[in-house]
């Protein structure tokens, strides 16, 4: 990845040609992500009861686009991200990333994707730079170049150079999440999977991350899958939104299209909040209360 930080504009310029020149087998005519009829069940409990986590989900993300998943906790958003990441096997259906089947061409797909999850998972005693260099080496990057790119990305995200060599455990939750985003970006993913990347961040950090995602999309030629509970964030960042409920896609359209839908069909105010309530049968407040209750357990 070619990353340049200009002091004047503070804009991180990521050269898409340099990214694509890295022997990436990307066909520009195929969708960034194609999910067809994907189903996933888990066997839970002593009774070995099968639970349907994802049910016959299909979607298509065009190259350079951003698709958002909205849904209550347990609706299957993170499971879908894990299926696309190759961290779960498919029971039924198929997933292609830039035309490459995730099961048959596992290594090719792994080189094309990276993920940021809600919990910024690191070796906490290691510094951001040590964590990032480890990731860079796994993706075949030259260490010297990776170090330069890592500094540029971290500084763009507001992490001062003097913090880069201190243990991650000394950083705030928001800063750790920014390092997680930097780790994903460092490997130049053509498909970026963001699983609630701004959950738990303060408003300023959230804004920093959202702005950075927009930059990445514009300048890095990345396609993005985003799950979020922040409806304003989804409205701002996503071209299309799929609403998941009980593992099924119950509505999918552009943000404006979904708002029109609730207004025309259900006579409600055209807001994403009403879209969420209508198609998931619950309010976001219920969802937040459930998370807080779960954290207390």
């Amino acid at each position, binding site marked *: 990845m070619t990353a340049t930080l200009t002091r004047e504009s503070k804009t991180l310029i990521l050269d898409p040609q340099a990214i694509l020149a890295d022997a990436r087998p990307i066909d520009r005519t195929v969708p960034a992500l194609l999910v067809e009829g994907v189903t996933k069940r888990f066997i839970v409990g002593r009774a070995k009861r099968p639970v349907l986590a994802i049910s016959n989900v299909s979607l298509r993300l065009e190259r350079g686009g951003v698709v958002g998943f909205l849904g209550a906790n347990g609706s299957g958003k993170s499971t879908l991200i894990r299926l696309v990441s190759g961290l779960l096997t498919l029971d039924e259906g198929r997933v292609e990333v830039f035309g490459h089947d995730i099961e048959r061409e596992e290594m090719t797909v792994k080189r094309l994707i990276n993920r940021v999850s809600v919990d910024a998972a690191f070796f906490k005693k290691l510094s951001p730079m040590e964590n990032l260099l480890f990731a860079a080496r796994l993706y075949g990057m030259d260490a010297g170049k990776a170090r330069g790119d890592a500094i540029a990305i971290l500084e763009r995200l507001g992490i001062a150079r003097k913090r880069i060599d201190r*243990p991650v455990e000394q950083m705030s939750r928001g800063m750790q999440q920014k390092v997680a985003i930097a780790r994903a970006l460092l490997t130049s993913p053509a498909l970026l999977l963001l699983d609630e990347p701004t959950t738990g961040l303060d408003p300023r950090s959230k804004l920093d991350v959202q702005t950075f995602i927009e930059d990445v999309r514009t300048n890095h030629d990345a396609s993005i899958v985003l799950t979020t509970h922040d409806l304003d964030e989804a409205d701002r960042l996503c071209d299309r939104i799929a609403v998941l409920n009980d593992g099924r896609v119950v509505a999918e359209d552009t943000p404006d299209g979904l708002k029109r839908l609730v207004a025309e069909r259900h006579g409600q105010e055209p807001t994403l909040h009403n879209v969420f309530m209508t198609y998931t049968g619950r309010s976001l407040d219920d969802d937040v209360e459930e998370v807080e209750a779960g954290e207390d357990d």
Partner: protein
Amino acid sequence: MTLLTHELKASYAFVERNFNLSRRYWGWELAFLVYSAAGALSISFIGAQFGDSRLLLTLMVGAIFWNYLSVVFSWIAETISVERWEGTLEYTMMAPVHRSTHLLGSVAYAMVFGLVHTAAILLAMIVFFPNLAVGSANPLTVVTFFVLGSFSFVGIAMLAAILPLLYVERGAQMTFVLQSVLLLVSGVYYPIEVLPGWMQVISRLSPATYAIDGVRRGLIDGASVSELIGDVWPLVAMGIVLIPFGLWAFGRAERYAKRTGKLKRVG
């Protein structure tokens, strides 16, 4: 970049990361080193009190070599449990790296770390027991069994590393139990003939049994490798069988974990 270069770079990533972890946890590493040295010296003093140099060397070899094997075993077996603990397992599993590359890096660091650790303990032994009767030792035999013992132990350690993949909460404890059983049955501090019959059968399945016996007889009796062929072939056979089997089993376990969702962070 060739595939081999990529894989070697990726292997080195695990070596470098583990080195950084050792550096950042230096306090714990130092404490563990002091504990290991104190344990080895304590056991050696049991031999010293009888004024029997053969007994002293027998116990000393057991303490030093077991330290080496247990360090190697721990680093490899904890490949998964450490990442599960830190929450990084999913990220490592997502990376475009073959599992053999991943494990090769862990094994390489484990062996280097084990040698450095063991050298420090050996130094402590020499300081406390400067007049050891090792004049008739056969260094080639000692080195040969160190190497053979290392590789045959790698396969078992790989199998142990599977446990935290399969058993999210208790896998790490299970690897510790396995390591303890190996210590018990492998004749580390006593001849396996003193064990009950059924335990002697199990001891034949442990590579440590043959490796420690070989090192002991090379160091104390000056036996050559050719004289110890009965210890050599089980180690070679175990290395040849267990390493590929460990890799295969690890792949199967990873597939199972992906099917059942066990790679996910817990806790």
